[in-house]
């Protein structure tokens, strides 16, 4: 019957389907993100709130470092740390919990029943992460400048550093979020598994405490993970050059930032691509 033949031809997937559906996923993910008030408070605004608390609490404290007429104040020092925390929380914590929840509540099974490619789903998640993180970072910088009088760098190469560390960090934390989402077995355990690990890593990676005051063995552990290097990269971009005296080895090491983040991003992508399944087949 010709009718059937026509039907078959009509229903083949067109080229460009992955990209088209991926872009539509970004739209749908953003809509859902904006409507979820817990995501808005705990992920989106959390680093900004934390920054306001830290910067207010320590604004009267003596600067951390004075060299000649240059200084590094506490509000200055916490700005790159909270930027790093924002990217980290949006990627590893929020994305990780979100995918785990979608896996367990049947959302992924429903998507698995359609011709939506896994890659399009990932494009949607990454797109949501990139867009919300950029807005979040802009908000944080605006609060720092307007409320705490922080001076942002004027040299283009510092902004370039900020940009590449930012995007490498996003990719890195996004794929780690996908990997972490495979671990929790139920919706209720997703947050319980992800949050403590994320919190511990933030403490040892110089997000809440200056990295240099940590014991050397903790620094060694933290340096194996990407978060400490994201903080380091952001500090090198946003703080006056003298701030390097607060770093381990008293120097900036941007190549190491690129190497560690790149390695984690590549390894994470491979593990994510191999382990990601719409559903666990019973």
């Amino acid at each position, binding site marked *: 019957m010709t009718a059937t033949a026509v039907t078959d031809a009509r*229903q083949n*997937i067109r080229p460009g389907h992955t990209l088209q559906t991926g872009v539509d996923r970004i739209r*749908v993910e953003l809509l859902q993100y904006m*409507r979820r008030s817990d995501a808005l408070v705990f992920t989106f605004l959390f680093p900004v709130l934390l920054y306001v608390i830290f910067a207010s609490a320590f604004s009267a404290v003596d600067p951390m470092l004075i060299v000649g007429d240059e200084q590094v104040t506490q509000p200055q020092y916490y700005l790159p740390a909270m930027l790093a925390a924002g990217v980290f929380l949006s990627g590893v914590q929020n994305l990780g919990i979100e995918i785990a929840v*979608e896996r367990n509540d049947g959302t992924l099974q*429903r998507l698995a*029943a*359609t*011709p939506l490619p896994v890659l399009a789903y990932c494009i949607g998640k990454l797109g949501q992460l990139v867009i919300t993180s950029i807005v979040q970072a802009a908000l944080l910088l605006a609060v720092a400048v307007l409320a705490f009088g922080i001076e942002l760098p004027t040299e283009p190469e510092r902004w370039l550093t900020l940009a590449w560390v930012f995007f490498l960090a996003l990719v890195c934390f996004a794929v780690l979020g996908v990997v972490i989402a495979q671990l929790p077995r139920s919706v209720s355990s997703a947050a319980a598994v992800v949050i403590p690990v994320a919190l511990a890593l933030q403490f040892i990676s110089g997000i809440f405490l200056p990295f240099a005051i940590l014991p050397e063995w903790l620094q060694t552990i933290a340096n194996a993970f990407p978060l400490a290097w994201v903080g380091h990269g952001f500090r090198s971009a946003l703080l006056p050059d003298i701030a390097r005296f607060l770093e381990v080895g008293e120097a900036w090491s941007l190549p190491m930032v690129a190497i560690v983040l790149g390695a984690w991003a590549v390894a994470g992508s491979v593990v994510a691509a191999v382990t990601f399944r719409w559903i666990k*087949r019973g």
Partner: protein
Amino acid sequence: MSTAPAVVVDGLTKRYGDRTVVDGVSFEIGRGETFALLGPNGAGKSTTVEMLEGFRTPTGGSARVLGVDPRQGGRDWRSRIGVVLQSTGQAGALTVREILTHFARVFPASRDVDETIAAVGLTEHAKRRVGKLSGGQQRRVDVALGIIGRPEVLFLDEPTTGFDPQARRRFWQLIRDVASDGTTILLTTHYLDEAEQLADRAGIIAGGRLLALDAIDRIGGAEARTPIVRWADASGRQEVHTHEPAAVVRGLPGEPDELEIVRPRLEDIYLAMIDAEPADEGGGSAARETEEVAA
């Protein structure tokens, strides 16, 4: 290929541990046919359907849907399949129109979104978030998502759970329309009138085994459909199974109370068949094996 059956199931078996929940089930569904899979809770209906959807891996036997092994079905195959699961998570934050618009873009030859919303009777709720709808309304969203891609084979696992009577009638009409477009439909339901209304053929499954497989108006055999004459007299309620009900009625004295002639409906036949089965709570075949060993 248009004459080949849309669904071919041969000796399909699923075991969880030592429990056999689907036990050598075989049937075919022709192109354009509507097939109902009926059976009590835990019979293995959803397990069977989900193996056909590629969501569970069979322990034995084989399944082909549109000529493809469901576990190997790629994107082109998925675009020709529609799935309404027994239980689905709700993308609660999206509105009815948003989620349908998105799914319409995922399938290559989708139905019109507003038309589909109207077909499931949700036009006035199109702008409401799915999570804020009532249970029956959310179920209608599930059905709309199942048909939005204009599937060639549509799997409906208890699609009308929670529907009010009016919504159920509307759903029947929708399914008849979808079927008249040439869509092959596999339906599971506990509403036997629904199966009677919609299905061409049915299979009855219990304890994982297929007990009957036939056209909906023949299932259970002619004997099971013998008309029944019922009335009441001084000595109580009377009931006669007969192929000549008119003759029986004519032979009755006077004008008996509560006189009726009924033809057993699918539900009566189904219940008789299930009652005749030994009630085994799923672990049936293990029990049978033990008996065999003992004997």
